[in-house]
């Protein structure tokens, strides 16, 4: 059985190995590309929107994370938010805005993701009916995290995961920590990996302008 070696085997086996290696490598390359492709980039408001139902802190920074309640990628953002909050406890007021697109049933956003967010110490979960808050802030992608200083000035806008639905340290998380530590980060943004929220981001831009 082992010693069986024919010309056919000598040709077929390397071909199979090559074909297999190519197929598997291509598959991983496609997966890697998908995981590292961010969502649609938007321009969030530079100042806290005056029409927002959310109350910003006047003596602490305010962090807002927009979440699609069913987005699997956002679970990683919530995990990273939990880690972030454990490091900046008492230095920031934080909201998770659960975005509900228009025309969905009442219990549509009663999901594990919302419950996980609500369980993070120091987090206030806000249900955003019709996606109005998302529109006001100019949020289009789930996982977008905004950090405003106590004067209402935007200091960071971006994602806090390294890729789509992948836990671990990210540039976004580091930049938020830098801002909260009173340092100036190298950039004030980071790519956002998540599902489309389904709210019109343009409303926020128009309102702010």
């Amino acid at each position, binding site marked *: 059985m082992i010693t069986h070696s024919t010309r056919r085997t000598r040709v077929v086996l390397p071909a199979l190995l090559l074909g297999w290696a190519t197929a598997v490598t291509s598959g991983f390359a496609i997966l890697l590309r998908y995981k590292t492709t961010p969502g649609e980039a938007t321009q969030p408001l530079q100042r806290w929107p005056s029409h927002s139902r959310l109350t910003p802190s006047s003596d602490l920074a305010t962090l807002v994370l927009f979440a699609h309640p069913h987005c699997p990628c956002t679970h990683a953002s919530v995990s990273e938010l939990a880690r972030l909050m454990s490091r900046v406890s008492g230095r920031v007021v934080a909201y998770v805005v659960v975005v509900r697109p228009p025309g969905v049933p009442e219990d549509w956003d009663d999901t594990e993701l919302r419950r996980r967010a609500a369980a993070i110490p120091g987090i206030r979960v806000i249900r955003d009916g019709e996606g109005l808050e998302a529109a006001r802030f100019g949020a289009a992608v789930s996982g977008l995290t905004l950090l405003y200083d106590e004067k209402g000035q935007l200091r960071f806008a971006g994602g806090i995961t390294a890729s789509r639905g*992948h836990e671990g340290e990210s540039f976004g998380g580091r930049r938020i920590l830098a801002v909260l530590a009173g340092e100036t980060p190298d950039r004030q943004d980071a790519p956002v990996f998540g599902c*489309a929220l389904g709210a019109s981001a343009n409303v926020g831009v128009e309102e702010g302008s």
Partner: protein
Amino acid sequence: MSVAVSEQAVQAIVRRAEERYGVERLRLLVATDHLFGALMVGQWIFGIFVALTFSPFAWEGKVKALHMHVWTAVLLGAAISSLPLALIAWRPGAAVTRHVIAAAQMLWSALLIHLSGGRIETHFHVFGSMGILAGYRDWPVLITATVVVAADHIIRGLVWPESVYGIVNPEWWRFLEHAFWVVYAISFLAVLCRRGVRDMRAIAERGAELEALSESEWRTASVLDRSKEAGTSEAHAAGAPVARERIAAR
């Protein structure tokens, strides 16, 4: 003459021991191949289950579509398991089969880590797989697995370091820390593999000796019985001493 016969007997036992070892080793390799065959199918089903559990749908507002992870689990998972399964059916026990299985097993680790969203717990799959691969008692298989892990780390470490090391700007020596734990695991597993092979050889040698002993005793007894029946002493004089020498030669 008796020295020549003893030498022949020893060579016969050595040949038989090698034969027994070969048969047992092949049986072990084929059985381990089949174990991995079941694992390849099981991991594929598990991968699809993980994808459907963690990330069934991608959403755009209230519109959902099957998530990329589900497609990946079905198609890439099938691709990873396909060649190992084909080789297990086509060339069970062959070296190429177990080396492909080792590579595929490490690729499964990478895929499951992706499908579970990079959970640290899923990284244990790498070390668990190394332990199962040691079941082949063939340490080069562990080297193949290590090469695949290293290639994955090097490529991803260059293009996407945070997915490997969990931090965005790892120190240059960080890969050595990861490599150390893999080398630590396979070093001891390789020693255990060699020990396992040595034990298999010892068992094969003892089996061959027992076979030879039984055979010689049977032959001696047969000759004695025949000589009794024939009432002659020639047969005893010619056969028994040779048989006894062959036994004594061991």
